[in-house]
């Protein structure tokens, strides 16, 4: 929900998302696609340097991952597609053009469903197409006063997918939710790592206002340079307010590109419509057009994993989990895989969910680890949980053992055995402790018998303390009730 007060204006927002693909090599040469941390310009060859005479060759994996995304977003895949050259001069663009797609992209016309504030929203996807990333520039000082800039072409030619959304979003909160859901889908299908801070996932937004109820679109502003969910939300909220104020005062907006300044928390004009680039698109003559066969499309479709929304619904129905738990357990593929492995080992789904989202998630959060990377794998956790189910260990002891195993990597079930922490279910042994507790807590006993239910807790606690948490709570309760009969009870 928007934080903006009720207004006669309606926001119209569409996002353009760029995602680097998780291919091994670059889009048109065999250099590595994973360029992070390499010495400047070391991950280059004549092709991605744009040396005279070099020619691009299509990386089939880039096509496949784009098709995968397009199908996950319900797009149509035309049979015929081609690459085009987008021509402009900039020092991070070694060829003076970017190989991209113009009028015949790999896919068209899909949609993405997402939730915001408990509502389900469907936003259209205009197209998903494929292009190459640029290099990076390192300015000496700030860009406006630097005397030189250094060019690093390690990133040049990395496969970059552009997902153009329809202007179907009506608030910054919707835009944020759309982006989060899209990111989740991209991670699920293994095409992108979702890292906005490092720029492997980037987002530009188009935003305009129109009177509520109007059909025609207002003057559009494009916002760039938002590199976190938070900045997408903040920038759109800022821009919404700015545009509303201009319109409320009877002013006119101009079509322009504005950049989000994280430092100043505002958008700053970068380029007016008159200064808009002339890209002189034309078909890339170095790459023959592509014919995508139906068989190829069906093969990619068959290889699609279960998507987050479907998995969440399945977790609710198959494992009888509450919506909130299903949502959390399907947030990332790693979470749901871990859960399903634990359940597959014979643990009751509800118990597995409670422990994964409770104690284990807490430990992971503290250690800043995803659950699949922690030292307690699904099998050791399943063993421990089955011990709880079999009354071989109490929940309290299991919590401590889990924490210990998380630290040391030891097997939790083995810890229970080796440290003698198994649950005590011997009625005789417990009866001795119960009697001792009654003797030492005579007031609690009489209070309980006088009708104070809470007094029973103190007695159970005393037994547990005596047993170091190992006494079977059911038997303790049973014995206490026998020892302390209530009138008429």
């Amino acid at each position, binding site marked *: 929900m928007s934080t903006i007060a009720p207004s006669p204006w309606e926001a119209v927002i569409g996002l353009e998302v760029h995602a680097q693909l998780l291919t091994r090599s670059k889009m048109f040469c065999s250099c590595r696609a994973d360029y992070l941390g390499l010495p400047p310009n070391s991950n280059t060859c004549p092709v991605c340097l744009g040396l005279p005479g070099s020619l691009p060759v299509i990386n089939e994996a880039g096509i496949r991952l784009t098709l995968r995304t397009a199908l996950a977003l319900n797009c149509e895949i035309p049979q015929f597609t081609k690459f085009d050259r987008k021509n402009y001069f900039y020092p991070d663009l070694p060829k003076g053009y970017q190989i991209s797609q113009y009028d015949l992209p790999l896919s068209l016309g899909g949609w993405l469903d997402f939730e915001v504030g408990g509502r389900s929203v469907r936003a259209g996807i205009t197209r998903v197409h494929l292009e190459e990333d640029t290099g990076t520039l390192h300015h000496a000082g700030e860009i406006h006063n630097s005397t030189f800039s250094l060019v690093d072409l390690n990133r040049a030619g990395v496969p970059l997918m552009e997902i153009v959304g329809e202007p179907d979003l009506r608030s910054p909160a919707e835009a944020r939710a759309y982006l989060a859901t899209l990111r989740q889908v991209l991670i699920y299908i293994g095409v992108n790592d979702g890292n906005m801070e490092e720029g492997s996932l980037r987002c530009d937004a188009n935003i305009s206002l129109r009177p509520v109820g109007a059909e025609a679109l207002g003057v559009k502003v494009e916002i760039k340079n938002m590199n976190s969910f938070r900045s997408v939300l903040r920038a759109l909220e800022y821009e919404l307010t700015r545009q509303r104020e201009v319109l409320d005062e009877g002013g006119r907006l101009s079509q322009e590109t504005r950049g989000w300044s994280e430092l100043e928390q505002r958008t700053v004009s970068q380029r007016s419509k008159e200064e808009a680039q002339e890209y*002189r698109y034309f078909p890339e003559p170095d*790459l023959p057009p592509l014919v995508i066969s139906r068989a190829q499309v069906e093969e990619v479709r068959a290889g699609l994993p279960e998507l987050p929304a479907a998995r969440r619904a399945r977790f609710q129905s198959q494992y009888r989990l509450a919506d909130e738990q299903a949502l959390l357990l399907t947030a990332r593929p790693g979470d749901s895989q871990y859960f399903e492995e634990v359940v597959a080992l014979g643990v009751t789904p509800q118990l597995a969910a409670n422990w994964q989202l409770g104690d284990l998630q807490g430990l992971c959060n503290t250690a800043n680890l995803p659950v699949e990377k922690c030292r307690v794998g699904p099998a050791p956790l399943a063993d421990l949980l089955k011990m709880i189910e079999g009354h071989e260990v109490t929940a309290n002891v299991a919590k401590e053992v889990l924490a210990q195993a998380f630290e040391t990597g030891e097997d939790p079930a083995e810890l229970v055995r080796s440290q003698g922490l198994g649950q005590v279910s011997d009625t005789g042994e417990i009866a001795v402790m119960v009697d001792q507790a009654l003797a030492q807590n005579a007031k609690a006993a009489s209070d309980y018998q006088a009708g104070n239910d809470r007094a029973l807790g103190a007695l159970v606690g005393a037994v547990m303390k005596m047993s170091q948490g190992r006494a079977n709570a059911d038997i303790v309760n049973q014995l206490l009730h026998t020892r302390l009969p209530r009138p008429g009870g």
Partner: protein
Amino acid sequence: MTLLEEPIRELGRRLREREISAVELAEEALARAKELDPTLGAFLRVTPELALEAAAVADLRLQEDPAGAPILCGIPVAYKDVVCTEGVETTAGSQILRGFVPPYSATVVDRLSALGVVPLGKLNCDEFAMGSSNENSAYQLTRNPWDPERVAGGSSGGSAVAVAARLACVTLGSDTGGSIRLPASFSGVVGVKPTYGRVSRYGLIAFASSLDQIGPLAKTVEDAALVLTAIAGQDPRDSTSVVAPVDGFLGELRAGVKGLRLGIPKEYLEVGLDPGVRAVFEQSIRMLEGLGAVTQEVSLPTTEYALSAYYVIAPAEVSSNLARMDGVRFGPGFAGATTLKEAYEQARHEGFGEEVRRRVTLGTYALSSGYYDAYYLRAQKVRTLVAQDFDLAFAQVDAIISPTAPTAAFRLGERTADPLAMYATDVLTLPANLAGISGISVPAGFAAGLPVGLQVLGPYLGESTCFRVAQSLETEARIWDRLPPLAVAPA
């Protein structure tokens, strides 16, 4: 008499029988270049060390396995300066690439090197292969060895002259609108423009990517066929290269023309042919008919639009292909520029010659929004029609013959002031590039002492037929071994 006058097969025999060594052959070629090239201007740079090193290696190979060594082993070659050669400066005849030393070689260079050829150096050409006379080279003039006051033709002028003056056995050029066939005709040598996709363009500094093809220039048709056989074939580094057999170039070379149907496009005779050129063409027709070929008139009705379409499509691609020459990594740079825009303007204004700037401007305009449909798109439609014309013609005939150019070599400076007159030089050659088909220019005769070529056009991947026709004419005309005056050192 120089060794360089011998065809490749004869040289190959002499190399294998140890009559001569590859080093001796290389030394002779280098000596000739030193003596004759100051006048001719074919070479931009000669690489004696590389040549002698390769020749020594070739000699070892020839000694160890004379029968198994490739036919091109030890043969001196040279490359047009648009072909990248690892470690050897490659400028495309442009100031903006002065000092550019490629860290890699073109596929054609790799393939020939693997066969043991001896690389003599890099050959002059019009800047980025844009021109028909070599007068657009940023570095030097190349003179026609038949008349030093005349042009060599272009843009592969250096490649044609190096063969004509017997400085190299064979050279590689590139043909975008006639840039191999035209200088071959003007200089009296064989020049092959292969089918688009026949030869890898990897490492060819692009002029117009959808039109460019690398091809050989040679003294004889067989020499050209030998070299094309060696460089043709699909290349994983060039997605526009095609898989197709190459054995017919040599296999069918001497199959003759008996019964072959040869088309004569009537529109090609209406372009203002020089009378001397027309006479040579008519003589060629008689010779081929005498050998049993059947000639007939064909029509290529879109010929008059092809030139205009070409001068939209080629410049459009140029404007994009040359964008990488932005002064950041190549060229004289932009000292003193205060903004990025100024830096680009300065680097490109100083780095490019007038003709290149003209074509970049033309192409930029043709691709701009609002003009794209009227120019680029319409030109592409014309291109499709041109290809359809050829398809229809090749349904009736096996090959098409015509003069290679409306005139023989013109005088230096004669057309430099009039770009349109210069562009018209290519009117008979560039339709083949638009259609992507194969073609050869073969020496057919002389007009006022200047060589005149016959153009043989074959269908898509129809080089074998072109070679057959050209070989028949070469055998019949018996002029291939005539030496131009400037091939002989002054006494």
